[in-house]
């Protein structure tokens, strides 16, 4: 299964900057977050289970051109409510949603690059230092009650930021892995290839 790109989010709403269009834009964004969370979790599942060829270690050709690529627009830290209230809170959430829109293309560039190094036929490598891409929690929905909406929003935006950070950590790991800087200590290569008699090939 190839890398599945995260769908582009709609225009981020802005209570402070564009109150005229806020209602329609915010509801559209709220609905789009459902697909965003699903896309992110697909990416996390795919890369967390992905295998990389250990024989490429030290092969700098895998890291060519502008690669490894970096995420420059991470999802902003969600505000803590309270103490943040009023205009400050509106401004902070405006910024948070805007950062999600900017994050998507960055994430897709990084994800596509990581995908070029995925090798499904490579052996399983047990590496305790390999980072895990975190998943994104359920999004708040327009028909949620106020308390449910609030708790889901806090959980969702926090996990979305964690996802953006962990994706970059994973990209860093893959870049280091591919450029041969990985520390071999603690890494165990598990060969899964067997011969016709069921013996493991080494």
């Amino acid at each position: 299964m190839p890398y599945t790109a995260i769908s582009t989010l709609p225009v981020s709403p802005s209570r402070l900057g564009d109150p005229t269009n806020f209602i329609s834009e915010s509801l559209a964004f709220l609905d789009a977050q459902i697909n965003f969370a699903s896309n992110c979790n697909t990416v996390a599942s795919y890369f967390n289970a992905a295998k990389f060829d250990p024989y490429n270690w030290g092969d700098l050709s895998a890291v060519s051109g502008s690669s490894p690529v970096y995420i420059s627009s991470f999802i902003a830290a969600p505000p803590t409510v309270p103490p943040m209230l009023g205009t400050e809170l509106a401004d902070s959430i405006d910024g948070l949603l805007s950062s999600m829109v900017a994050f998507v293309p960055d994430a897709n560039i990084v994800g596509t690059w990581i995908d070029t190094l995925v090798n499904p036929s490579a052996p399983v490598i047990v590496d305790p230092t390999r980072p895990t891409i975190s998943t994104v929690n359920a999004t708040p929905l327009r028909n949620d009650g106020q308390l449910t909406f609030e708790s889901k929003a806090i959980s969702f935006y926090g996990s979305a930021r964690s996802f953006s950070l962990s994706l970059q950590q994973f990209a860093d790991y893959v870049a280091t892995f591919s450029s041969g800087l990985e520390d071999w200590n603690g890494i165990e290569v598990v060969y899964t290839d067997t011969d016709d008699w069921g013996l493991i090939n080494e």
Partner: protein
Amino acid sequence: MIIIKPATVTAATLTATNVAETDYAVWSAGTYTLGTRRIYDHKIYEVVAASTTAQPDVGAAAVPASWLYVSATNRFKMFDISVGSGTTNASSINVTITPATVCNSVVLFDVDGATAQLIVRTSGGTIVYNQTVSLTDYTGLNSYFNYYFLPIAETGATELAFIDIPNYSGATFQLIISAGAGTASCGEMIIGQKSVLAVTNFGTSVGIKDYSVKTIDDFGNVSITTRPYSKRADYDVTVETADVGQFNKFLASIRSTPAVYIGDPDRGETIVLGYYRDFNVVLSNPSISECSLSVEGLI
């Protein structure tokens, strides 16, 4: 507590405005029939007699009256100190006032737009005060849920007080209410000299008086006619006992006079334009005295 006694704004002191005065034709001598409206002295009058040749202000004072005062013109509604009337203008309201007396405070009521900017210039043209305030009030936004679902309409500030203006004789006050592509409006603009008289305490109560009418017909159908409302407040204030005499004299001097009462400039709900109904001072002890002050709002 701050009390501002309004300075009167007339055609002479309103030195510039971008609000046209074209509500109706200007009155000129002639014969006018029932229902005709004309502007006279920046006020709108309507003929209530079969026909009249009287000057509107004279006809309105006559018995029986031939003219009826309707309202101030749109240009002057923001200075008329009355319930439910305000100046509106597409995109912005830009007015310049040169009061005859020294003023150090400007308060806006029922203001609507994106921003309000007040620029104060000395008689020589030097800018000594320039402040722009957003008219969006987000104090009710306290959760992610409210971010998404709090109606935009509930985030507008309706009262705004500029009370830190330096004192200059002959200064001009330019107010610019910007509304972008929308309509700017201002229910009332009060300009005057502030008096800081007491400390407002928690325990002050505020509310509104609604003039809407509910009628029930013979079949039990209810209809509601929405009308303006005015604010009211019962201030709980503390006065230094040594100043009680002066406090009493000042309040007595503004009896039956509309004034702006400000409990806390940062709390718009405690800003009321109106008359005080009564006040009562209790000489609690030698240092401070407690006072209750009831104000009936006009707006």
